[in-house]
């Protein structure tokens, strides 16, 4: 997978987690995955279509997700509370939205769909669609993973050859 497509997700996750968790996220591991994906914690999925097609899964250890939920709601949240999954969706929305913004501004055109909570059934399906890159980050509250599977179709808008005139 092209690194220039992945880099914005790394920068975006780092920036958003720094804001939400008041601590930097360190990259712990980067791996390619060709088999089925197993969700590690609470996960949300965002799908895109266009010149870039695919999906990104944000997967968080429940303690890390609860910390984000606490930041967003302005109070302490237990990792077992149902709203923690909703917080993972909102975080996915911010991280992936910011990365998509950078990619679009570089000339890649595609549409993003709203995030949804990743169920076990979707998880099994997501692992078989294409080769994925797994980025693991360490935070003080636990691991956060980004599972990125994207295919690039066609040239960027600014790479297109202008039409001959006359």
């Amino acid at each position: 997978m092209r690194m220039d497509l992945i880099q914005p997700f790394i920068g975006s996750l780092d920036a958003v987690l720094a804001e939400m968790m008041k601590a930097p996220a360190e990259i712990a591991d980067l791996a390619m995955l060709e088999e089925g994906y197993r969700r590690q914690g609470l996960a949300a999925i965002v799908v895109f279509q266009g010149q870039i097609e695919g999906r990104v899964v944000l997967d968080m250890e429940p303690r890390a997700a609860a910390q984000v939920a606490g930041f967003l709601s302005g109070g302490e949240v237990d990792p077992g509370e149902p709203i923690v999954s909703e917080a993972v969706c909102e975080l996915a929305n911010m991280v992936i939205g910011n990365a998509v913004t950078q990619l679009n501004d570089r000339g890649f055109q595609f549409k993003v769909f709203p995030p949804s909570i990743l169920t076990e059934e979707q998880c099994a399906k997501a692992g078989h669609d294409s080769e994925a890159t797994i980025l693991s980050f360490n935070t003080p509250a636990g691991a956060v993973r980004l599972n990125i599977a994207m295919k690039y179709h066609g040239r960027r808008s600014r790479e297109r050859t202008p039409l001959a005139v006359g």
Partner: protein
Amino acid sequence: MKQFEALTRKKDNQPVRYLIVDDSVFARKSLSKMIESFGGQLAGEAGDGCTAITEYARTKPDIVLMDITMPQMEGIEAVERIVQEHPDARVVMVSSVGYQDNILAALQKGARHFVQKPVKPEALYEIIRYVLNDDAASVPVGAGGENSR
């Protein structure tokens, strides 16, 4: 959360009323807290563009804070329909997806401004002041106005 100088409507010195449109409960909650710190009042909430249109007509808010990526009807289409029916509507887009084409499309459909998530209260406050322009006054915290907390 930091308390800002309360923004009031110049015409009647009442708090500025907001409609928050976002499919995320957390985003709505977070924005709701921010407008409270601006001395504002929540007029209504909606989780998608269709509900936003009916809620706008029902609540007639001074400001709409509108997400872009939502189920059923996206924010840009909702802005277009609200502004068609209510040309004076003041809509501020609040989204994590902030690429130029999207911002341009929203502004062309009638949105007044754009702020990217995660939202910084200071940035949103300044944008709201800018959008309300001469229709709003700011009251220092604890000044004893109707809006002071």
